[in-house]
């Protein structure tokens, strides 16, 4: 048995922050941001809008794309849940009218969606579920340090979702090979230091930026390039695919420069490396499903395409999945 991708949808909040908007309040320029990241704009939630609101919209779009109105399980990959406790997935399921189904959150930062695909594939292959809604949604605008140009310029809010069902390996949309990994020595590279059990929130942590998201950009750039390339190569090797066989490489939309470097190191032609990072920025767990929704809607992803998805994120974590794109 295998997990078959059979629906995709995405959603970004209406409000847009352009590079010019950021240049008004930060020591940066449109040129500085574009040359280092390729990002022109990012979407941000309005006051009162939260991760679950975006997740519900993307989830509904994916259910519609799959032509179904029920699933047995909802998994939400996120690093910015509505509350530290409880998980956000049950509320998302309820809002989608998916009453009393199994629902939980999964946390692997920017690799969350790929880890989610592997997780739900396990549920489907073992028969614990027949159909699953997997959503990646994040609102990093709520946790970044707005005075840090290294992160404020990079991250955007959004959600993306896929529906997967139980099927067989030879069906289009079957998840054919996985690679997952982590390196806990590099925890400090991508972190919100305070607010967990090690450094509980206090007046003290609130006076520093420790409750805000922080990233060591240079080291992340290097690690992301290294591990996204290695992980994508691992799934190619498992399937006996050559880099030239890949019709569409959908990497985590962290940064245009990382995606270009990974494409180059893999040996995948630049026109086969999909990018929407210029329009949405780094949307963390939403990044890959949002890119899939965009690429599918734009006709860039066509039925029968050999597709490799690869992510790198906090933890650090990384992972890849390969599939043949289905008719949606």
């Amino acid at each position, binding site marked *: 048995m295998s997990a078959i991708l059979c629906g995709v949808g995405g959603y970004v909040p209406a409000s847009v922050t352009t590079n010019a908007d950021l240049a008004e309040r930060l020591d940066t320029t449109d040129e500085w941001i574009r*040359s*280092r990241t390729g990002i022109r704009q990012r979407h941000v939630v309005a006051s009162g809008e939260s991760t679950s609101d975006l997740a519900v919209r993307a989830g509904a779009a994916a259910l519609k794309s799959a032509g179904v109105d029920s699933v047995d399980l909802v998994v939400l990959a996120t690093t910015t849940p509505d509350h530290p406790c409880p998980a956000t997935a049950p509320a998302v399921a309820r809002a989608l009218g998916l009453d009393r189904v199994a629902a939980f959150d999964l946390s692997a930062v920017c690799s969350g969606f790929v880890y989610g695909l592997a997780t739900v594939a396990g549920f489907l292959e073992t028969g614990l579920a027949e159909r699953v809604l997997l959503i990646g949604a994040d609102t990093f605008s709520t946790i970044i340090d707005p005075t840090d140009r290294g992160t404020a310029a990079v991250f955007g809010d959004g959600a993306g979702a896929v529906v997967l069902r139980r099927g067989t390996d030879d069906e289009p949309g079957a998840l054919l090979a996985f690679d997952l990994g982590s390196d806990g020595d*590099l925890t400090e*590279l991508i972190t919100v230091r305070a607010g967990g059990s090690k450094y509980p929130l206090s007046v003290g942590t609130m006076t520093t930026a420790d409750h805000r998201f922080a990233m*060591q*950009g*240079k*080291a992340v*750039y*290097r690690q992301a*390039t*290294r591990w996204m390339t290695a992980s994508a190569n691992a799934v190619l090797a498992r399937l006996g695919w050559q880099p030239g066989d890949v019709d569409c490489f959908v990497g985590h939309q962290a*940064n245009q*420069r990382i995606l270009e*470097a990974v494409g180059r190191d893999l040996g995948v032609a630049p026109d086969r490396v999909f990018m929407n990072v210029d329009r949405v920025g780094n949307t963390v767990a939403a990044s890959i499903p949002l890119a899939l929704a965009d690429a599918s809607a734009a006709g860039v992803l066509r039925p029968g395409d050999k597709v490799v998805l690869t992510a790198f994120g906090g933890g650090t974590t990384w992972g890849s999945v390969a599939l043949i794109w289905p008719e949606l």
Partner: protein
Amino acid sequence: MEQEKIRAMVVEFVRGVDGVTEKVSTTASFEELGVDSMSTIDLLMKVEREFGIEVPDERLPMIVNIQDLVNFVASAQQEVRP
């Protein structure tokens, strides 16, 4: 490998970065040479590959110009050598 040879190779790598002018000073910062932070990492990764060494993450902030990089490569190669 002698310092001079390492320097010559590193200078060639730096000249290969987009936007870098022909004349490169070994003590001017990478930023001043037109090598932005991410191109610096590309450069380091190329140096790692070509010289068969590894630059630990914690050393990244200390390598800000060509001379720093040459010194690092020379010392790393000494360590590798038995």
